[in-house]
């Protein structure tokens, strides 16, 4: 009898912690999303409005539609470049050697930098007057001389992607390297003995075996890209115009600049729903039993 209850007692502190710091705030924000609550009018939530906020967001809010489009474009470009970049780097670093080992150790450094700081640094580096990237791009590609990166809608989105890729690719490279290390070498060697070129080995042997790892990288990166916030604040400020306003940034604006807590909660929950779907997909990938 004592053993039967002990496991629950031992779990209780952790369960209470999760309840207090995650479940409870989430439940409160879900309840808030069904209420009209402007902090400018009242310090407590107002009348119950049902699904009105969700309906307005999905049918009658150009800001939400814009943020959804920006987020989709950002996620698509960001995840594609991150997956391909980390795969390429991992293949380059796969071989043993002093230089490779050193590079692998250094790879983790960009990930250790705060994303807000990354944004500020990139803002300086793309400064039209004194930015090193602006100068470099103008030197290598003369038609880009004088180009103001952060004033063009697509260029500023690409700069935002670049800043995120710079931070994430090295980390994801380590993940892919781990996947590559776990692959048996025999099939690749057998293919080479059979006369396959390096490209054929990569395309027909390595990549199919690595697909589950790449899928995990893609899903994980999608989850993080959907939450893009810090660099938007410090690098583009959502501009030019509203070309880089992501969903997470919109939620921040709604809640903490415009004080519309009810509507902000609804938009946050739409974003959360997307993340939950991806998280379930991710868990299925990770926990999937190998084929018999």
């Amino acid at each position: 009898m004592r053993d039967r209850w002990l496991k629950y007692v031992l779990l209780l502190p952790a369960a209470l912690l999760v309840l207090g710091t995650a479940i409870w705030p989430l439940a409160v924000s879900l309840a808030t999303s069904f209420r009209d609550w402007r902090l400018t009018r009242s310090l407590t939530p107002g009348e119950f409005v049902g699904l009105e906020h969700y309906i307005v967001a999905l049918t009658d809010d150009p800001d939400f539609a814009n943020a959804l489009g920006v987020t989709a474009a950002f996620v698509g470009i960001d995840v594609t470049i991150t997956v391909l970049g980390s795969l390429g780097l991992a293949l380059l670093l796969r071989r043993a050697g002093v230089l490779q080992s050193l590079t692998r150790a250094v790879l983790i450094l960009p990930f250790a930098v705060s994303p807000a700081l990354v944004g500020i640094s990139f803002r300086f580096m793309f400064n039209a007057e004194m930015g090193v990237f602006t100068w470099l791009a103008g030197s290598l590609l003369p038609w880009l001389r004088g180009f103001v990166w952060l004033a063009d809608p697509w260029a500023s989105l690409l700069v935002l992607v670049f800043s995120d890729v710079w931070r994430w690719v090295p980390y994801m490279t380590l993940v892919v390297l781990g996947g590559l290390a776990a692959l048996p070498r025999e099939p690749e060697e057998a293919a080479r003995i059979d006369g396959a070129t390096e490209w054929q080995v990569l395309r027909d042997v390595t990549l199919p075996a690595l697909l589950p790892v790449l899928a995990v990288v893609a899903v994980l990166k999608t989850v993080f890209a959907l939450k893009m916030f810090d660099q938007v604040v410090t690098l583009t400020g959502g501009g030019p115009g509203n070309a880089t306003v992501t969903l997470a940034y919109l939620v921040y604006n709604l809640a903490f600049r415009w004080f519309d807590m009810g509507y902000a909660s609804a938009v946050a929950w739409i974003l959360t729903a997307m993340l939950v779907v991806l998280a379930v997909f991710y868990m299925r990938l990770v926990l999937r039993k190998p084929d018999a």
Partner: protein
Amino acid sequence: MTTPPAMLERRRLLAGAAAGAAALGLPGGARASVANTPGLRPGRPFAGTELKVLCVVASQFRAHEARLPAFTEQTGITARYTFVPFVNMREALTAEMVGGGGDYDLAIVMDQWVASLANLLEPIDARVREKNIPLDRWPEAHLRQGRVNNQLLGLPSRGHVQLLFYRKDLFERHNLTPPATWEALVETGRRIQELEPNISGVAVPYGRNNGQNLMVWYNFLWGRGGTLFDERGQPAFNSQAGLQSVQDYVDLLRRHRITPAGAVSFTEQDAVNSMGQGNSAMLPVWWWVRATLVNPQASRLTDAQIGFAPMPSYAGRPRTTFTNTWIWGITRRSRRKDAAMELLTWIANPALEREVLLDPRENDVVAVMTPNLLDEAVNARFGGMHRFAAEGLRATQSITFGPDWPQVSEALEIAMNEAAAGTRSVADAFNNAAAQVRRIRRRG
């Protein structure tokens, strides 16, 4: 015979200065000072109380904090300042309003946030009357930012006006005079770029960041006779005068090309850096920027290279300035409101502001009280900057910041950025902003 409005304004200003000067004097001829504050309750009834103060990071308030022992000596009250950087200040105030259990007794709030944070602050009309604090001590342009729905929520303590900074050395070398009109600014900018090919005429921010790309434009708008809103509170910034003012403003960048090319994405700090690094010859900006421009760690310029003048206007129109005002208010949830009012009274003493302005260890120009703006010693120290400020404050218009202002400002900021970048025409961008603002106001 009728008195011209400008003369009435001047009289009102002088009357305010006289009232403020009188407030500096104490009965019996003793002069008010940081250590001798009129209005404090006699007998130190709140001795032993500790106040908590939520304050934005600013050298002016560090200077106040350093002088707190004088306040404690007069009242027996101690105060603990918590300094929050500007970028986090609104979140800190919001958190205090929503979840604070009276953590802070006194808080400082920027004008644009006052209406939306009105639930944070206690009306202080009666307390100010009881303390006999003369409200004409402050220019109306600053004082009105502390009022919401005819209730006074706070007293101005930090306030900014705009000035046109210019490279005095370049202007002297080429026999140029600081432009008094926008037309002259364009001409002067062009001339400088001809004479100094590596220097842009004027640094102006057109990028997005807390409405910074609107702050110089307001002067264009008022100069053209436009307003942001009509009497019903509906958008008027897309009137013919409004659209022309935007066109004039973005023409500095797009047509006259007298700004740095990167100005289209500049924040205010980028514009300041551009002048500080010697890349631009003029800079219309807040007066406090002087401290940055003469700071060797942030700028290549020296004090002798920097001149300043009132903001230009259109020919025949009065000089104006957009203002930025911070007000001190007592929090609604404070459990020590009477003691907090003692501290507010001490802070509102013109002698404190004057002492900080004249302290040779300090370099902050900020002043909000008329007697100090017109003070001879203060003007002597800062080259007459404060007299220019008083002049701008006298004639300026101001914006009533309603609770939806942050959202409205964002719509305008986006429109300005789009017009400057050329992704939309001026009319298209501002008509779209007007539609957005109407939608915001409809939602209430």
